[in-house]
């Protein structure tokens, strides 16, 4: 018997996940093709900005998937606190971890895009502030989990922290918004684009289609990563169960 068929026997998720992996790989190729080749040029931009705006498709893809990851973690946390089942906790943890990876994607693509358009890598725009703080909160969440050994204590404390952190995110957004409206934006041209108005309003047909394609592709990638991590956590938990049984 080959190792592959052994694995397939032991784990019913083996084939579906493999299929999802292949799909995710193809989806990334499609996303690059759509973002770089299929989408037509923006009508109101020229030069560096024209090339740079194509990163928007990947920026938006990361943005949507990170948001999905963090929403999954909140649902998982509430689920754990209500049902007290570690199944929910593993969903929350996988959501946070995969969401944070895409969060770094938002930061990186955003900074690369901001340099040619806003003439700075960084500005304390409300969205930037909120995204940064959210990612910091979830990094803290992961560190916090590491500091506890008992699985149920860890799940309970991590869920409580996730809830508290989730409450504070809108406050960060609103304070950052007032913060900006009192202080004028230093860099020219940052204002209109910082609000995102012209992006939603002024996309052409191919740009809208490309956006749809890349977001779908990123969601497939997210699902692949999420299920891998979730399955890994389930296996880890099973090992832990067996170990507890062994030592009792």
């Amino acid at each position: 018997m080959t190792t592959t068929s052994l694995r397939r026997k032991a784990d019913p998720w083996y084939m579906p996940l493999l299929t999802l992996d292949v799909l995710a790989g193809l989806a990334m190729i499609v996303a690059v093709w759509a973002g770089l080749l299929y989408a037509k040029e923006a009508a109101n931009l020229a030069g560096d900005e024209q090339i740079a705006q194509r990163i928007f498709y990947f920026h938006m893809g990361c943005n949507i998937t990170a948001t999905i990851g963090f929403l999954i973690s909140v649902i998982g946390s509430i689920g754990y606190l209500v049902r007290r089942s570690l199944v929910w906790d593993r969903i929350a943890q996988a959501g946070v971890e995969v969401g944070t990876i895409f969060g770094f994607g938002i930061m990186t693509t955003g900074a690369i895009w901001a340099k040619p358009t806003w003439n700075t890598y960084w500005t304390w725009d409300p969205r930037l502030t909120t995204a940064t703080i959210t990612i910091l909160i979830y990094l803290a969440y992961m560190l916090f989990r590491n500091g506890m050994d008992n699985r149920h204590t860890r799940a309970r404390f991590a869920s409580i922290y996730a809830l508290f952190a989730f409450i504070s995110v809108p406050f960060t957004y609103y304070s950052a918004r007032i913060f900006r409206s009192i202080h004028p934006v230093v860099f020219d041209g940052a204002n209109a684009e910082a609000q995102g108005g012209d992006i939603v309003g002024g996309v052409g047909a191919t740009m809208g289609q490309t956006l749809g394609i890349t977001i779908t592709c990123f969601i497939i990638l997210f699902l692949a990563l999420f299920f891998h991590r979730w399955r890994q956590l389930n296996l880890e938990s099973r090992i832990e169960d067996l170990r507890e049984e062994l030592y009792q």
Partner: protein
Amino acid sequence: MSSDSLSGLLGRPVQMRTGGGAKAFLRKVWAVAAKDIRAELRAKEVASTMIVFGLLAVIIFGLAFDLRVPKSAMVVPGILWVIVLFAGILGLHRSFGAEIDRETLPGLLLAPVEPSAIYFGKLASNLLYLFLLEFCMLPLLLVMFDTNLYHPVILLGLFLGTLGYAEVGTFFAALTANTRARESMLPVLLLPVMVPVFMAGVSLTAGILDGRPVSGLTSWLVILAVFDVIFFVAAYWIVDLIWDGI
């Protein structure tokens, strides 16, 4: 000794005193707070450390910014709030850390009161220490930076901000008390959640120092007040979950 003779020895069995309405609840909160304050008056390890650290930090910032910034009022709001946050961490993690070190937390949790009464008692003592710290810091800031922070709106903002900070800080101190490396874990958890309070506090203080009209700054006070109320309610609801496994 059988359990019957034991309970005979102790008199009537201990009951959870959960009834009694708001007045009884406040009495329990005060009992926990008074215990903390009494321990602090005898040991002098938390508030004194916070205050000395705070004053030291003002002097360090004074050395750092002296002659480097054109007008010291430009940096004082940031200095004030950074020191409150950092000095606060020192006291907050001791509020449950000391109970863990002396192995008195189980005893405290066995007291026949609601867990939320323990939380609010700790919150009251932490608030007292933070207010003491600020009371000592403001005159030194006035001397060091020649900036007068005794403005009613700044003081109100400081009060609301400190309240929100103590609420979330005491809660997270209870969360981290049982983890490894709790001293370093608490700031990592707490500071990102405190960003709105920090931004609102700094902007409010800076606005007043810049001489802006108070009417344009009320939104900061509203953010601080709403933050306080929401986290007060959230802590009251969720705090029971922290200790339900112990």
